[in-house]
């Protein structure tokens, strides 16, 4: 605190009480938010955690978790979830990197304007964007028409209600989550670094790979992990664009609740999803700190 004065000799006790009262007031200001999170997140999720350990006979059991290991159907769901998340992340990196690079090269003013191309979709309902892709990708949709027109393929190709459609839709929705942190880290790169590299005789391409790219990695890793983690628990887009063929963890949770009303099984899947998310985020925090230490940021 900036207002702390040297307490030696002055009425130390009084100042301490005042400090304590101050902290208490501040605690009071934060309390409603803390209570809301406890009531809406901690208790319900804790409840699901408990339910996931209650067997069909009402006693403690690990049956819901055992089923996940035993049944092939679960292995398939996990595999598809992992596949979709990984592929979406890779697509986002391949598309997002050049875009972020372009934006980072622009003068700040122009970058702000072009950034709207990222921010407008970001703040548009994902339901609307999923719907748009549903229409664009259908057999008589614009994308098929265009591909046939330029001779990419001859008869309409099935682009939606399958993995292809899911990946296209997911990549579109996730891209801003990669571009924003990546752009942030690129903006922080000192231009002088590139000048120094050029001065020392590096070609622009060489300087890019040896200097720029490694410095942009922290933003890329952060963005990729956010995308990957968000994909793991994604529901709407795979449910609509996958047309029932791309069953991810979230889709499976809903299906279990809708068809079997089995809270234990649904909760167990949810718990696995949460733990996977937390592990990845924990590793990310470690990794990025390591990264920061490496580059001295």
């Amino acid at each position, binding site marked *: 605190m900036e207002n702390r004065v040297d307490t030696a000799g002055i009425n130390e006790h009084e100042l301490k009480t005042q400090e304590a009262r101050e902290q208490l007031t501040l605690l009071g*200001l934060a309390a409603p*938010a803390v209570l809301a999170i406890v009531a*809406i997140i901690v208790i319900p999720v804790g409840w*699901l955690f408990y339910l996931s350990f209650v067997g069909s006979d009402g006693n403690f059991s690990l049956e819901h978790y055992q089923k996940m290991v035993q049944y092939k159907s679960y292995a398939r769901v996990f595999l598809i979830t992992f596949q979709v998340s990984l592929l979406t992340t890779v697509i986002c990196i391949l598309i997002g990197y050049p875009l972020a690079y372009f934006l980072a090269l622009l003068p700040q003013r122009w970058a702000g304007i072009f950034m709207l191309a990222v921010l407008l979709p970001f703040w548009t*309902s994902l339901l*609307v964007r999923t719907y*748009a892709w549903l229409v664009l990708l259908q057999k008589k949709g614009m994308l098929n028409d265009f591909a046939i027109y330029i001779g990419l393929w001859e008869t309409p190709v099935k682009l939606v209600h399958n993995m292809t459609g899911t990946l296209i839709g997911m990549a579109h929705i996730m891209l801003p989550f990669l571009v924003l942190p990546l752009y942030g880290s690129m903006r922080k790169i000192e231009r002088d670094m590139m000048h120094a590299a050029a001065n020392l005789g590096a070609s622009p391409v060489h300087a890019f790979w040896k200097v720029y790219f490694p410095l942009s990695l922290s933003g890329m890793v952060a963005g990729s992990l956010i995308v990957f983690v968000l994909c793991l*628990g994604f529901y*709407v887009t795979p449910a609509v664009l996958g047309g029932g063929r791309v069953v991810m963890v979230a889709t499976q949770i809903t299906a279990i609740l809708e068809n079997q009303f089995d809270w234990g099984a649904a909760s167990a899947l949810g718990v696995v999803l949460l733990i996977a998310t937390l592990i990845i985020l924990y590793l990310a925090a470690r990794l990025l700190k390591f990264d920061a230490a490496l580059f001295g940021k």
Partner: protein
Amino acid sequence: MGWLTKPASDTQVTHRDRLWLYIVATIIMLLLVIPTFIVIPMSFSDSQYLEFPPSNWSVRWYDEYFGSSKWMRATVTSLQIGVLTMLVATPLGTAAAYALFVSGHRAARAVFMFLITPMIVPVILIAIGTFYAFGRVGLNNTITGLVLAHTVLAAPLVMIVITASLRTYDLNQELVARSLGASRLKAFFAITLPQIKFSVLTAALLSFLTSFDEVIVAIFVSGGVNATLTKHMFAALRDYIDPTIAAISTIMVLVSSVLLLATQFIGNRDK
């Protein structure tokens, strides 16, 4: 085309060397924006089937939307929940962000992390968790229930926006006011709040949008007469493609665009 051979930066690269990047970036930006706005021309199509470009123009899907009591009811519900969420989440998040920022306490960082957990926990888990818990206390299918859930989803955003703006603000001004006899509360409302008001407004708009666009929790927790627009839209998308959705989507795109442009416009005014 003289600009092409001009250096693009003060290293050796010319704009011509970077032309590929400009082209690739333009294509990517178009791919980002087109699917967001394509619903607008689509919604004015005369056809039952979603074709683009439409062969005949009409406003029949808007008639359909405005004439349907189901869609109107859902729209009003969504707007109500959005406004209420905004009114609850903004003060809640602002108070917490302010308290944690001002307090130099060791635990402040931990509490901040705790308060942004709704951004970390998968939304599907929050959805089924609240669905289960609300079922026990009779909050499912109520406005109150969904406002509570959306408040928790929006509060972290508010906190992040407000904390960022407090970082650029000199808190000593508040200390001056307090040393002149103002209470903490008075100092906040008279000195600090006026200087971060645009950030508070941005946070409010973003929390409205968070609620208005939210799908997953709404699918589980809202229902009956209090079902939201997004819940009905999701059901319609899964079952059949109704062009009315294009009309509704257009309205949603316009709402988000206007609010986003507003936040961009007011974003940097706190200085």
